[in-house]
């Protein structure tokens, strides 16, 4: 429409008379330069934002700095969790792991960073992550069924951590509960506490 009546339009809006400048969007060096420049102007702030803010967590180590209570594990990555005397040989008990924690700009002393279930199996300490390997809800041990039950998608596990099969409802967990490495020094029980990817057959640390 504009092309058809250039004179009339120009007189209204005071556009320059050289209408041939409009012949194509990228028809000139100036056009190409302007388009590239315009594009870059948008990309610049976006790139710095993505790099500085969005990718920030990828560069930060959010793992706890040191183990609370002075009981530092003899091995790297192990946390003090309990004393041997606190473990029962029949019923798994839930223990909370405490450590100093950094959340973004806050430093917090002695925070619960996760929890595990432990029980004595003969001479051995058996330890499971409380996170359900299916979708990450927290399982709890039920005395009544003598099994670990997940409250979300009906996953359940035997007391030894293996998947409970044969129930009437489905059991969507891809694997049994994640056993954690335990290290006993004297009467102190240390656990290598780490999170694993959920929803996969293989147990892969995050």
């Amino acid at each position: 429409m504009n092309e058809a009546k250039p004179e009339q339009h120009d007189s209204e809006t005071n556009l320059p008379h050289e209408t041939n400048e409009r012949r194509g969007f990228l028809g000139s060096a100036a056009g190409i330069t302007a388009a590239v420049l315009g594009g870059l102007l948008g990309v610049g702030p976006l790139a710095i934002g993505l790099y500085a803010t969005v990718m920030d967590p990828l560069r930060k180590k959010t793992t706890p700095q040191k183990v609370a209570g002075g009981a530092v594990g003899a091995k790297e990555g192990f946390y003090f969790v309990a004393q041997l005397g606190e473990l029962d040989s029949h019923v798994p008990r839930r223990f909370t792991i405490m450590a100093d924690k950094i959340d973004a700009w806050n430093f917090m002393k002695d925070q619960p960073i996760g929890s595990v279930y432990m029980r004595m199996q003969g001479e051995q300490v058996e330890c499971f992550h409380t996170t359900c390997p299916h979708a990450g809800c927290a399982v709890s041990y039920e005395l009544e069924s003598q099994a670990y039950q997940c409250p979300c998608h009906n996953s359940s596990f035997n007391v030894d951590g293996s998947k409970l099969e044969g129930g009437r409802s489905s059991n969507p967990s891809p694997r049994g509960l994640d056993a954690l490495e335990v290290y006993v020094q004297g009467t102190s029980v240390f656990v290598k506490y780490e999170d694993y990817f959920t929803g996969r057959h293989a147990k892969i640390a995050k």
Partner: protein
Amino acid sequence: MFRKLYSWFDSRTGIQASLEEALYENIPGGAKWRYVSGSMLVFAFMTQLITGLFLWMHYSPGSQNAWASVYYITFEMEGGNLLRGIHHVMAQAMVCLLPIHLLQVVIEKAYTKPREFNWWLGLVLMKITLALGLTGYLLPWDQQGYWATKVATELAALPPLIGGLTQKLIVGGSDYGHFTLTRFFALHAGVLPGLLIGFLVLHLAMFRKHGITAHSSPHRPDQLFWPMQVLKDGIACALLFAVVVFAAIAEPVELGPPAEPTEAFGAARPEWYFLFLFQMLKYFDGSLGFNTELVGAIVLPVVLIGFMFAMPLIARKKFGHHLNVTVIVMIISAVVYLTWEAKQEDNYYLNHPDDTQSEAYKRSKRFHEEVGRSEKEFELIQQLVKDYGIPLEGPTALQQRDPLTMGLRLFRRQCASCHAYSHDEYAIAGPPNPDARHDSPLNYGAPDLAHFGSVKWIQGLLSNDAVTGIRSERYFGKTLHVSGEMAEHVHETMWASAETAADRQTLATQIEQVAWALSAEAQLPYLDYAANQEKIEAGIAHLNDDTLGCIGCHNYGDNEDGYVIDLNGYASAEWITKMISEPTQTGFYDGGSDNDRMPSFHTAATKLLTPREIELLVRFLREDRSLIDD
């Protein structure tokens, strides 16, 4: 005068032309009620923008502040509940209107040539709306939103290779924290609405370019958008708003107890419109030998969305449109069915009250217990906020100091595998005893600790009643002590020797007096000892004279020959602290020979409970509601 002013204004702004452009859109076949769904969606979104902006004015993201600010908005700000309620209900209305709008487009074949781009833009708008729902659910930072969203972000880690990275970017680190909230808030209040506005402008521009998908009919003349369609749209939107306001008032928007990363919430469910996805996950159980969860959570939804994107292209084939309609109807049916099934499973226990032994019943019952527990925790925190206000460290710091909130949690975790707590307001069930044999390690049981140390509790301990007395499950029924000296003494000596009704009446009176005397040792905050001084003195005399035969086994006052359960300071804070810490010590179950199965909770060798936790439990058992110091 006005006309002159308007003409001046129009000559400089061109408003007349713009208005004509906007309002004089031709509608073939005239205005219709069924064209209102699009306008309703725009109106719903505008409502969300406006209410959202005002909520923003008082919302503060961050682990300590989020719940506190939403609490303030919801319960302390006049009109705040309605404001948040409208935002909350309108979000759901939007999700309900989306499939209606979409179905209309499909049925009218409005997604086909030349309107492909508008269909695609619509699908993008739908995704953005759902993403707004998902991100908004977390912002109050209550238990429900926290644990439900955690599952959603776990699913983000499912795709191989990029999964872990994606999850970290969304969550803002490897764990939930400040960054999760600041990111979700930036998405919810900035990025997503911005995108939505952008795509909505394109959607509307495309719509105006192609016009309404309708044909003129000889019976119904064409009409312009203004005024009839605008009026119809306006009435529909007004009705929608009225319904939303009514719903927001009729059922005030709720808030759960504050998020607590170590207190798993066992009834976490997504917002109802995502329940079908939640339910679908139960079907992908990995029994095929490969990672089927990925299929259920990511692949299948992506395939279905992909199909929807391909619909305009499929429609060009013969029977393509019929295929599209069939698939869309199937998807919607499946979504409705899965949502219904998820609700059914959660409510199984209510709908099948007799099927008590089934797994489904037990699961559903646990779900409802968790919901009840969460409601109770909210009541408690609400009272705490009223009494003390929310400290800088956030609402959970307040909970951590409250003997009732923490006592209930600690009792459940550490005591309830043996002890019941049948309090009127805060009952906790004891152990289920799956194996009835007494020597079975699974047959746990111990006295009911509700009102422990009260007159009534002690009276029960000294009673031979089969249901409420010492040998009942309320006291020693499930312990070794059921056949021990104490139970034998109560049954065989105290009550057996009271032969006549008058004797039994005398004994009952003496027991009541002794119970008052012992309870006075506890000085429980909920009993009036001053008003019962006579009974207490009589009881003390009975104890000193050994009327009931307590002395000899128990220490009391000057009598120090006892070897089990010191009655001095009985059920006092100090006494209970010792009992919980190390029941095998002198003055309790001396050396442990008389201890049944009570574990030591805090000794040099075991620290199942910290001193602070024991203090909380002690106050809880004594029903002393004063906060502990930090």
